[in-house]
């Protein structure tokens, strides 16, 4: 039925599979990074061409538009400085009170910007590639977010790039709480919807007081995400497991389909 060359091809493929699928997880991850390195020139080219297009578009903007934008940003900056001063005062007061209660004071969040260079080429996962690797200070499990909300965590660290597991992926479980009711729960993938902006939350007990529009933030449990990072808002709820728990759909604050830049939290308070 088959010729000798067919058996050789089948044997070679089986051998490759046998070796790869039996590699220990750290060796497999290292090999994965090494193989993925062949795309670094293309990612570099893509980043350079993006910044070139940005620069070109800045050159084309009329001076009047730039001046009006500058004035708007100066006004916004003044307001933010005022808010920042108030927040710093509140943080200092909070830390003083925490110290009096015998709790460790919370440090400020340090964050670094990173640019999205690619998305998962497979259908089955929700991951991103960012141009932020170990040479920039990346380490495993660092939270990734935008001003609108949490995005995910760093799942694989390369030399110049890292892979981010997004909320809703099975590699990124997030312990959360509802800000209004203080009910706790967990967001864990895989999600049952194709829409990446919606995820499901399971609470640890039946909580009928959770309503649409309530705010969801990280609870700080689990040790990966610091407490208080915004996640999203409740869309609707339903009882699950014969009324023992509540399942709620959440619209994420960060629009995962339109991400271009993200922030990586460098130190957990």
């Amino acid at each position, binding site marked *: 039925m*088959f010729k000798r*060359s*067919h058996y050789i*091809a*089948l044997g*070679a*493929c089986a051998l*490759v*599979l046998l070796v*790869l*699928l039996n*590699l220990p997880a750290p060796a*497999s991850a290292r*090999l*994965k*990074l090494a*193989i*993925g390195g*062949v*795309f670094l020139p*293309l*990612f570099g080219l*893509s980043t350079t061409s993006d910044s070139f297009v940005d620069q070109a578009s800045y050159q084309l903007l009329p001076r009047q538009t730039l001046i009006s934008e500058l004035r708007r940003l100066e006004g916004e900056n003044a307001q933010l400085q005022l808010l920042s001063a108030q927040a710093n005062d509140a943080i200092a007061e909070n830390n003083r009170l925490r110290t009096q209660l015998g709790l460790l004071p919370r440090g400020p969040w340090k964050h670094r910007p990173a640019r999205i*260079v*690619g*998305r*998962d*080429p*497979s*259908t*089955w*996962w*929700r*991951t991103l*590639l960012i141009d932020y690797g170990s040479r920039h200070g990346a380490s495993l499990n660092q939270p990734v977010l935008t001003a609108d909300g949490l995005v995910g965590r760093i*799942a694989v660290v390369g030399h110049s790039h890292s*892979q981010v*597991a997004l909320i*809703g*992926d*099975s*590699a990124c479980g997030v312990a959360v709480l509802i800000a209004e009711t203080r009910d706790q729960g967990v967001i864990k*993938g*895989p*999600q*049952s*919807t*194709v829409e990446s902006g919606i995820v499901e939350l399971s609470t640890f007990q039946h909580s009928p007081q959770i309503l649409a529009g309530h705010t969801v933030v990280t609870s700080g449990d689990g040790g990966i995400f610091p407490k208080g990072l915004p996640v999203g808002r409740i869309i609707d709820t339903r009882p699950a497991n014969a009324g023992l728990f509540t399942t709620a759909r959440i619209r994420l604050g960060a629009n995962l*389909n339109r991400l271009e830049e993200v922030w990586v939290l460098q130190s957990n308070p």
Partner: protein
Amino acid sequence: MTWLSPTLLFLVTWLAVFFQTGMLPLRVLIGAPPSILPAIVVYAAFTHSLAVVSFLTIVAALWADSLSGSRLGTGVAPLFVVGFLLNTRQHLLLREQRYAQFWLGFASGVAVPAAHAGILLLGSSEPAVGWFTLRQLLGLGLLNGLACPAIFLLFDGLRGTFEYQLAGPGPYTANREMKRGRH
């Protein structure tokens, strides 16, 4: 120049895997990353040796796995099986007609991701699979169905441009040969 065609094939595959990580509008439209690797494997299976097809399927799958959340190597078997079956059964299959190329691309575009999901579900992974997967598979099938004839056209054009062409029969015909001497 027999090396040129496989080189072009690997180059296009490398670019195809890279573009799978982007192309956001197409990704949103079909609900899945725009992977045309199955269509490329269909073309390779009909035009290259089994050795080239085997190497291509293994390398392409490892490239795609290296950028994704999948465990390295889980994407090899589906691509290899499609390439192997088409290459060993090519004498039984239509391939010149555009509609045949469409259906071959469509079938492989559905079969490869479905088999990959099956392999992942057999392991300890938890891929995002649900009723929406049917829509994703349909989108990928249509994408590969449309890409397959385009890939045949592209590579046939490239081979026609860069490779030596077969010499035609020429003006010589044996029955017009002038014979000398007595007959």
